[in-house]
């Protein structure tokens, strides 16, 4: 089967934009670490897919959506973010996944690879990424309201359904990017563009737009670097992003000065 041309570039662009669009809300909700750990849950899904010979994408999405519901349920039970429980459970699932995955597939599962996809699956991934990005912009006001003042937001009729919506959007975006970036690093791709944009933006509207642009640009540039120098795409994208973050740091100081 001849894979569609530029598969990795298209995925990098659209999933990168989606990661950048959801990142600011995850960051402002102080869920960066929970979000990062969430991506590890994908590993047992990949393992089951490899054992039972179905496309790992479906295993990933099922496990991540289940994890999103779990985080939502845990948040509702306590006012304190249940970091420890999430850390333990998700690290355990990483360990289980590693034990189940055949050695030859471990590196690719953890750090990503240039995906080989059928055209329909590629189109489905691109379309979903576009829809999820758009949803972040449409729901931005409600997500922000719940971040700035949860009580006030509830008085205005915004319920916990929006918390769940944010988690599900986040989990699906992570699922879309895992083939390219890998389970260990995909969580970081949602955090890095938002962290860079936070250093540069003065307002929320610019913050979300900048973060989406950085998400797309860093991912595409990372894939280009990886293809040119025969690196794995995941580490190339993440390192490039971290490099830009370091460059953006002086701007944050100037902003608050």
């Amino acid at each position, binding site marked *: 089967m001849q894979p569609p041309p530029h598969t990795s570039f298209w995925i990098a662009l659209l999933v990168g934009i989606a990661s950048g669009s959801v990142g600011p809300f995850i960051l*402002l909700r102080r869920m960066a670490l929970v979000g990062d750990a969430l991506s590890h849950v994908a590993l047992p899904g990949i393992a089951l897919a490899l054992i039972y010979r179905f496309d790992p994408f479906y295993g990933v999405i099922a496990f991540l959506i289940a994890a999103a519901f779990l985080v939502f349920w845990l948040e509702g039970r306590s006012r304190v973010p249940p970091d420890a429980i999430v850390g333990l459970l998700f690290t355990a699932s990483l360990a289980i996944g590693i034990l189940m995955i055949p050695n030859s597939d471990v590196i690719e599962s953890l750090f990503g690879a240039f995906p080989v996809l059928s055209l329909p699956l590629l189109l489905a991934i691109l379309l979903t990424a576009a829809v999820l990005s758009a949803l972040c912009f449409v729901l931005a006001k409600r997500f922000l309201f719940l971040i*700035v003042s949860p009580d006030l937001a*509830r*008085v205005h009729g915004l319920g916990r359904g929006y918390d769940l919506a944010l988690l599900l959007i986040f989990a699906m975006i992570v699922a879309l990017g895992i083939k390219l970036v890998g389970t260990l690093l995909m969580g970081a791709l949602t955090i890095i563009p938002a962290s860079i944009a936070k250093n540069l933006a003065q*307002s929320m*509207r610019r913050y979300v737009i900048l973060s989406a642009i950085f998400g797309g640009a860093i991912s595409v540039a990372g894939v280009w670097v990886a293809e040119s120098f025969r690196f794995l795409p995941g580490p190339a994208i993440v390192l490039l992003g971290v490099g830009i973050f370091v460059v953006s740091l002086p701007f944050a100081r100037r902003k608050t000065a």
Partner: protein
Amino acid sequence: MTDDAVLNVEDLSVTLDGLPVLQNVSFTLQQGEAFAVIGPNGAGKTVLFRALLGLLPHTGLARWRPDVKIGYVPQRFSVDRSAPISALEFFLLQSPNFWRPSAAFTNQLDQELNLMGLHQSVLRKGLGELSGGETQRVLIASALLQKPSVLLLDEPTAAVDAGFEDTVYTLLHRVQTERGTALLLISHDLSVVYRYAQRVLCLNKSVVCQGPPVEALNPQALATLYGEASFYHHEH
């Protein structure tokens, strides 16, 4: 419930984690009046507000007039100071369109800023850059955007620098008299209660006293509320 009542509370009780934090609270809030809730720390004042807003489960009755519009003014923003959110965007949370607000919305916002004595330039500031007084006036202006018939204020001057507390209360008094908005406010400042509130409710898990401040806040009531070494109001 009388025709002028905005809110009717009967035997309201709240239990949190098995502990009673409010017991059998009853009072009525009239249209256009300023009603203060006072009490020591941990007396259940904020719990009472949260129960009235439907944010906490409770027993007993908290009945709002059906056509009432409630404006709630929390003490502060829940977001950290480094978050890049401008004051304008905080107001836009109430706009039907967050990305491109309508001219009608912007005009109304100008009116509320004027009423609160805030300059347009405040809109460009980040939420973390606002002073205590600006934060409080931004929060009140935002609540006013809904044209509420009642404003709930949780210690509106808690984070305001000394000297500016009066400004906030003068502005609230203007809202009350110019628009007929009822004010239900938690306060720790007895002089404010005497000056601006028509009626007061003293709370320490249950109701200790209730009525016009000059009558209700007698030495016995204050002693029960704050302990024997309490402070007294001096008539000037």
